[in-house]
Each structure stands twice: as C-alpha cells, then as structure tokens.
C-alpha cells in the first residue's frame, strides 16, 4: 500500500503550491491517474481522506480522473486506446507500440481560496 507515501508527496506539493499562491485554503484537488500508474484510485482516496485532516486541504474535495492506455503504433502510425492492458495495435496487430498516456500519476490542478 504505497498510496500513503504517494499521498504524503502530494501534500508536500499542495503546501508548496498554496504558499506560492498565497492561499489559505485548498478546496479542490484534481489528479490524473493512468490505468498503468501502479496505484489504486480507491486507496488514494482513502489515504487522502486520512491525510488531509489538519492540513491546508482539510476541506478539499479529491477528484481522480482515470486515464486509459493510449498507444502509438510504430508500424501503421495509428493510435489505440484501451482500458485493459494489452500491448497490441488494434489496427495492424503490431507490438511495436509507444505508451503515450496511461502510466501517469499527476497532480493536474487545484482550487484555492485567497484572502485579499
């Protein structure tokens, strides 16, 4: 269950971001999680809810967008999008594929409250 250490990293980033923006509060956190990111979204959610208490993001909502695998074929140059994890081109069957999306684990954006 490495989701806890990942959430710890997330909160380091959140503190940094809030400080840079001069914000008092974070109200929304949006992550992009690839199907091949190696983390379980439900476990991230649980870890987030535990971790957020008494932080700048106590009241924040967490939104996790799951990103399917997007593969670029080096044979026919077409793209395949899949929710399962099979590395064959849907168009020509080639296995010479480049992962364009689906492995990421990204803090995409946040919403902040700033006092004037």
């Amino acid at each position, binding site marked *: *269950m*490495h989701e806890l*250490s*990942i959430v710890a*990293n*997330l909160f*380091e*980033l959140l503190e940094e*971001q809030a400080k840079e*923006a001069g*914000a*008092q509060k974070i*109200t929304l956190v949006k*992550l992009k999680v690839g199907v*091949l*990111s*190696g*983390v379980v979204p439900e476990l991230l959610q649980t870890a987030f809810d535990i971790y957020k208490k008494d932080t700048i993001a106590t009241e924040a909502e967490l939104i996790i967008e799951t990103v399917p695998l997007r593969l670029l074929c080096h044979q026919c140059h077409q793209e395949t999008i899949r929710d399962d*994890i*099979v*590395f*064959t081109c849907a168009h020509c069957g080639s*296995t*010479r*594929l480049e992962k364009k999306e689906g492995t*990421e*684990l*990204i*803090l*995409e*954006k*946040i*919403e*902040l*409250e*700033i*006092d*004037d």
Partner: protein
Amino acid sequence: MTKRKERLVLQDLLGSNKKIANEIREKLIQQGILTANLLSSPGAGKTTLLEKLAKELSPAYRLGVIEGDIETQRDAERIRAQGIPAWQITTGGACHLEAKMIGNLFPQIPPDLDFLFIENVGNLVCPASYDLGEKLRLVLLSSPEGDDKPKKYPKAFTTADCLVITKADLIPHLPFDPAKVIQEALELNPQLKIFTISALTGEGIQDLVAFLLQQLQELRSSHA
C-alpha cells in the same frame, strides 16, 4: 474578501523520486556499474538467486548487494556469507524501496564495483512504481506462485526488462504452464527478456550470467 482561484499544476507525484533515481543512474553508469533491481513476491527466490550469482561471478567480478526488507538483517548476512559486501535497508514497515534510500547509501558503495544488485522488498505491487536508478529491472516469478500472475501485476511486468521464472525444478510437480506465463508476460511487455532458472539444479543460470555480462559490456562500451 475571499477569492476562489484555479491553479494548473501538472506535476508528477513521483517526480521527486524520479529525479533522484535519474541522478543515481547517471552516477552508476559513469562509474561503469551495472545495476539491477530485483522485484518479486516474498519467497520467489531473490536472495537464493543472488547467492548463486555471487558464486558464478565473484571473484572475477566485483559485486555489491543492497537488501531491502521491512525488518531484519537476514538477507544481507546471507550475501555477506558469500564474501560479497551487502547493505541492508530496513524500511520499518514501508512496502517498497525509494530512490532516496539508495541515495543515502551511495557514499558507502565502492566506485569500482562491476555489478550492484538491489533486492527490493518482497511485493509485486508497490516496488513497481519506484525507479531506484537501476539500469535493469528483473521481475522474478516462482513456479509455485501459479501461471496466472503477470496480468494480476501489470505494473511490475510492464516496467521490467527481464522476467525470471524461478524454481524450474518444481515445474514437473505443479500445474504450472511456463508457456502461458511467457505469453501473458509478452502481451504486457513485448520487449521482455525471459529466463527460466533453478537455483537448486543450476538450470538456466548460465544464460542469465551471460546476459548480465553482455549488459555490463554494453554499458561500458557506450559510456567509455
């Protein structure tokens, strides 16, 4: 007045680990050290394979081993008994090694090693997300674990360079079909190099040794 503001961040949650890992990889490659990170579930035979590799490669080649475990020095002691320097990292509960743990050990690692092996914490899930600065990632799957495992642990198999099927000596006694494992693993990762070994009988060990030596040579000729 309180204002609401949206802020685009676009930062990798594992970015700090990746940064440290890349620094470690660069240094090790510059020193001409081939580094391999071994992943498997507990008991698949990582330490036994390392003992075997120590016998095969040492003293002609200089080896070092980093042992990752939640508790105890046991695996490091097994490696030291082979006359190989070993450094134990006890994570105290954490289910994986992180690059900064390897970074902390770095000053102790002799710069004239040929091979540095890292035995990760026994777990096929969490360690897969953490680059440790290795050149090669080996995932070990032992025959008693069953032939349905690759697709259950896709991250480990898609990020590995090699699949090592261990305990081949037990295959005749088990409902384990190596062809099925190999097919599933290649569907996840068509580039995977596959070895089938037994540390008990020595089957397949020479192929793995030859591969490691060839990798060492390649690393040195491309970074001479």
